[in-house]
């Protein structure tokens, strides 16, 4: 199967290329024609290192007819690339957000639907077996009773370099948590969104480094998430999100990367923290490629991506006003 990584603008593009290069049945193509002023040959160099094909232009990469693409470009180029991928009949794995604007994101969902290709969002935890198991548990009435409240946290280490909106805590940290909630709530739309943020850790007023978001969904579920940056080298935070599901009869706690061993590491003079389980990005890439091979999808679909985008945009609006933002709930979803 031919899989193309489109652009190296996103920080994880190189990771995805490496993971795809490791898969035995994948023929990897890399395209990064827009390059970067700091590192114009980053895509070509990676392709050479991985022994992958390199395409010099978008026309060239789509002419190769990839079976699937991973869209890791700047946000404002994603709609164009997804539309071209759909035109080429390629399944798409796209980073959050689909687009800056909800109308653009909806257009991307439509074009993929019409072309019969699956649009998936790069939300690693949602692809994993542990999350599937927790969803199964939650579906059993006797475990939780009625789900009332969800508390999620994902304090990824602060990024080494901050690229404004995309690496801010809200834009980068909220979508993985919101996608998990969306999966558990079966796509129930959000009704009210409240967010507060600060820039204490980033020191740049335009880059929020701490953010709390509270969402009330149309079914009454209240979700409160912490998507703030953690300390730069906090191994305990790097592994993955945690989420507590509270019902009127009990609660369930999910830890994406539970601690395997502790102790003290004299070499670094730090607490030892090792997690178990597979690399969640490797699991996601593997699941995406396998699903594309079957012509089906895995992980959050485009419609879920739009719902998450709507919440993040409402959270930004709430940050500006200091008040909760009410969202119109589609008629069909009202209970």
């Amino acid at each position, binding site marked *: 199967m031919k899989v193309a990584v489109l652009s190296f603008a996103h920080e994880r593009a190189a990771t995805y290329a490496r993971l795809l290069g490791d898969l035995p049945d994948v023929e990897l193509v890399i395209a990064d024609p827009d390059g970067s002023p700091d590192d114009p040959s980053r895509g070509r160099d990676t392709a050479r290192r991985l022994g992958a094909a390199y395409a010099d232009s978008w026309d060239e990469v789509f002419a190769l007819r990839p079976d699937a693409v991973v869209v890791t470009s700047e946000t404002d180029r994603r709609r164009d690339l997804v539309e071209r991928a759909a035109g080429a009949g390629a399944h798409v794995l796209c980073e959050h957000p689909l687009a800056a604007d909800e109308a653009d994101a909806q257009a991307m969902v439509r074009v993929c639907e019409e072309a019969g290709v699956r649009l998936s969002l790069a939300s690693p935890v949602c692809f994993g077996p542990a999350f599937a198991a927790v969803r199964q548990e939650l579906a059993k009435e006797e475990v939780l*009773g009625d789900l*009332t*409240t969800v*508390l999620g*946290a994902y*304090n990824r280490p602060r990024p080494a370099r901050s690229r404004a909106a995309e690496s801010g805590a809200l834009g980068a940290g909220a979508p993985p948590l919101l996608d998990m909630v969306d999966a558990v709530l079966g796509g129930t739309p959000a009704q*009210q969104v*409240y967010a*507060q*943020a*600060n*820039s*204490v*850790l980033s020191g740049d007023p335009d880059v929020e*480094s*701490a*953010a*709390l978001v*509270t969402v*009330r969904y149309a079914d*009454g579920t*209240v979700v*409160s998430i*912490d998507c*703030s940056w*953690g*300390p730069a080298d*906090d191994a305990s*935070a790097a592994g993955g999100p945690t989420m507590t599901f*509270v019902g*009127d*009869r*009990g*609660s369930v706690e999910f830890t994406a990367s539970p601690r395997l061993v502790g102790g003290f590491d004299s070499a670094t003079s730090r607490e030892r923290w090792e997690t178990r389980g597979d690399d969640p990005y490797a699991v996601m890439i593997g699941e995406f490629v396998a699903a594309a091979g079957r012509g089906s999808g895995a992980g959050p679909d485009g419609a879920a991506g739009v719902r998450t985008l709507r919440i993040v945009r409402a959270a930004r609006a709430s940050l500006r006003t*200091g*008040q*909760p933002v009410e969202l119109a709930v589609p008629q069909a979803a009202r209970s």
Partner: protein
Amino acid sequence: MRQLEVALIGAGLIARLHLEAWTGAGASVRVHSQDGRAAELAAEFGAKAVDSLADALDGADAVDICSPTGTHRDIALAAIAEGVAVVCEKPLAADVAEAEEIVGAADRAGVPLYPAHDIRFAPAFARLHEVAADGRLGAGTVARFTVAGYHPRAWDGHASAESGGILTDQMLHGVDIAYWLFGDVVRVHAHYQGEITAPAPQGTSATGTAVLTHASGALSQVVSRWTPTPQPPIRVTYHVAGTGGTIVHDSEWPQEIQVSGGPAGVLGYYGESPFAAEIREFAQALRGGPPPRLVSHDALAAVRITQAAARSAWTGRAVELPVKGAAA
């Protein structure tokens, strides 16, 4: 040194814990209660029971108010008028106006007023504050606090949903710690779910989810729950981050002694009770020692924040709190 004379008002669960702690701190206690249980409680600890509030306050150095919240104001004002120091179980009052009235009266009379927020004396929270106060967390950025407890008895008060329901009481713990750590709160948003009005049955299930914005810019998420099942009877967690790192705690972590497979409700060793540490610190202050770690204005702040949370949950809006000396 003369023995401290303490008038304990109330004879319920909290009064019992406080009486045990006052006795341990070497105080002489007279107990007064409206519910007829004072004599029995007093006898258990070798204390006196008295028939009226006036008898209780007569010659007392301090009153310790452990009666229902609705009675706090009148008892506190009576004590302050007599120049008797006040220790008061949380919340100081059921609304902001009453809390302001009590704190104002104590300020004008120069009478000490110590609110009993026992969570500040629990080792994990005392340590958290110590680490932060030493500057080892740097500038505070974001914190999460959860308290989940089983309400063992039917809730027989009369709390309406508009008043914030039963959660204004329990949520005060997390709110107080957030305020202690990160200071003044300027904005509050909250949701309440579940059985939030009282009276409510045993095993009532409810959740309060609040976000506090502090004047410093730091953020706190405070979640308080009544859990439907009795195990564990109470669980507290926190995750606090600053420019200097993080500090986390979970009361479900293995403790010094862990009991597995035994009968439900058997707890491990948790060290000294927070009530003992709390009352000892108050007793030392009343004897002329250093002021305790929390005073009247902390109680007022906690009531203001929880009442703002109640208003936010009722109106669906974030509630702004004025802070003295802060830019509008």
